[in-house]
């Protein structure tokens, strides 16, 4: 099949928290899946044209050419994907976009909010240096064991206080001592992280935007930055935080 447009076979697709699933896929052909932390695939987990568009989902792990997606069921598309069973096939295109720089050294802080954890786990695993993982959740935590494997320190917050700090993860994060900060999560959280780090540490954030093509052609995902209009799917999804103009 042509470059970047592939079929995959579901190896397993399991629920890891109330609304969160992890799906592992084997390539349909002999070409292994590829991707760097922060890159994503466009997934179609259904036949026919309803839903119409593919859904962008980050690479959450790659081992031996097999890919893992960690995703939250938010609407129809992810709901359908969550019902795929072992052996089902799925169309997907990727890897797409520019991920996080994984070659940096020194102390690095990773900050995730909710399902924003998906690419950050892969990032933690890929970084060859000491990382502190700050992960915020609403009311249920997941993937903590996995995170611990790759992190020096793990800080957790939940909004209901069931695990770790009660409140937001940005309340317990201090930028001092870090070479760089990487973050993925709700825009409000990332905006806060950028504020906290301003003038102290560079922050790279992974932006979300509604996508049609996923590969830079439709300009549907464009956001405003200090470098001009940029495509989340092509120049991003990872941007230097201070360059992004947050809307609302």
């Amino acid at each position: 099949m042509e470059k970047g447009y592939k079929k995959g076979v579901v190896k397993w697709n399991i629920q890891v928290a109330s609304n969160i699933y992890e799906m592992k896929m084997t390539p349909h052909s002999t070409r292994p899946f590829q991707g760097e932390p922060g890159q994503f695939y466009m997934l179609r987990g259904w036949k026919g044209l309803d839903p119409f568009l593919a859904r962008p989902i980050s690479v959450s792990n790659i081992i031996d050419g097999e890919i893992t997606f960690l995703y939250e069921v938010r609407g129809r598309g992810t709901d359908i994907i969550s019902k795929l069973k072992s052996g089902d096939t799925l169309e997907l295109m990727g890897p797409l976009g520019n991920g996080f720089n994984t070659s940096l050294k020194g102390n690095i802080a990773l900050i995730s909010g909710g399902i924003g954890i998906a690419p950050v786990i892969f990032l933690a695993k890929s970084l060859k240096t000491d990382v502190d993982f700050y992960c915020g959740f609403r009311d249920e935590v997941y993937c903590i064991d996995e995170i611990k494997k790759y992190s020096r320190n793990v800080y957790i917050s939940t909004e209901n206080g069931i695990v770790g700090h009660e409140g937001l993860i940005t309340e317990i994060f201090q930028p001092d001592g870090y070479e760089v900060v990487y973050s993925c999560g709700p825009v409000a959280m990332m905006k806060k992280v950028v504020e906290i780090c301003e003038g102290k540490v560079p922050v790279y954030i992974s932006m979300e935007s509604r996508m049609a093509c996923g590969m830079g052609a439709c300009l549907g995902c464009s956001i405003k930055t200090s470098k001009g209009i940029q495509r989340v799917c092509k120049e991003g999804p990872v941007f230097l935080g201070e360059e992004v103009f947050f809307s609302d």
Partner: protein
Amino acid sequence: MINTKVNICGIEFKNPVIAASGTFGFGREYANYFPLSKLGGICTKGLTLKKKEGNKGIRIYETTGGILNSIGLENPGINNFIKEELPFMIEQGTVIIANVGGSSIEDYVKAVDKLNETEIDIVELNISCPNIRVGGMAFGIKSKIAYEVVTEVRKVCKKPLIVKLSPNAENIVHVAENCVKAGADGLSLVNTFAGMAIDIEKRKPVFDNIIAGLSGPCIKPIALRMVYEVSKAVDVPILGIGGIMGYKDAIEFIMAGAWAVQIGSGNFIKPTITLDIIDGIEKFMINEGIKSLDEIRRVI
């Protein structure tokens, strides 16, 4: 031997499948997926005289069988296009159609003038973008205004001139007739339908602009009807557009009167959808013993 070639306004297309404006950028991204030389042609993203940043807020919203878009003609401007994008496009070996947008007659005229000395093959005048409005009224809605724009552009345009019609026209057949009268060498239709969506939790329109443009297979039956009606009324070549997702759709448009077709939203579903369509057209021609598309064009 079958022959998928079509000649439109003196330009030869190796097959009748063209990438539609705004869904294919300037081809760069798709060139990673297949050799663009396989295409009949490419329409560029809508170009305006000056660089444009496009609309704020949500730009893409999925609907049943389609999408609403409110890109708002984000583009590098004609000059940058000529300098940065056109050389790449010329290398690809396919017909280049420059899609030109604008918000005043003057802008259209100036933009088209700049293209005269370039190697683009055809100008496609977009008088139908629902995301750019002039005094609340797009150029393509009223026959009289369409006539005026095309007349002025025709005066300067040295390239074959195709006018892209709006399905929101009060009477698309009249607009078509007026464009031809004003000197259009061909027509392409349809652009997107004015549509909208509401975020019921926020109690606000999804789009900052309120109205956005609907495309995709959802609009196909209406677009096909419009191509049919327009092709009965005018004698210039027609490029059929609207929800084409497979060769069957393409053949329908050709039978309804189109010389060639443009594929828009379909590119988002599968980046190589145009190749599947070209392939399907060829197979259909072989199976049905059709030697040239002339045999089936306007057959109904």
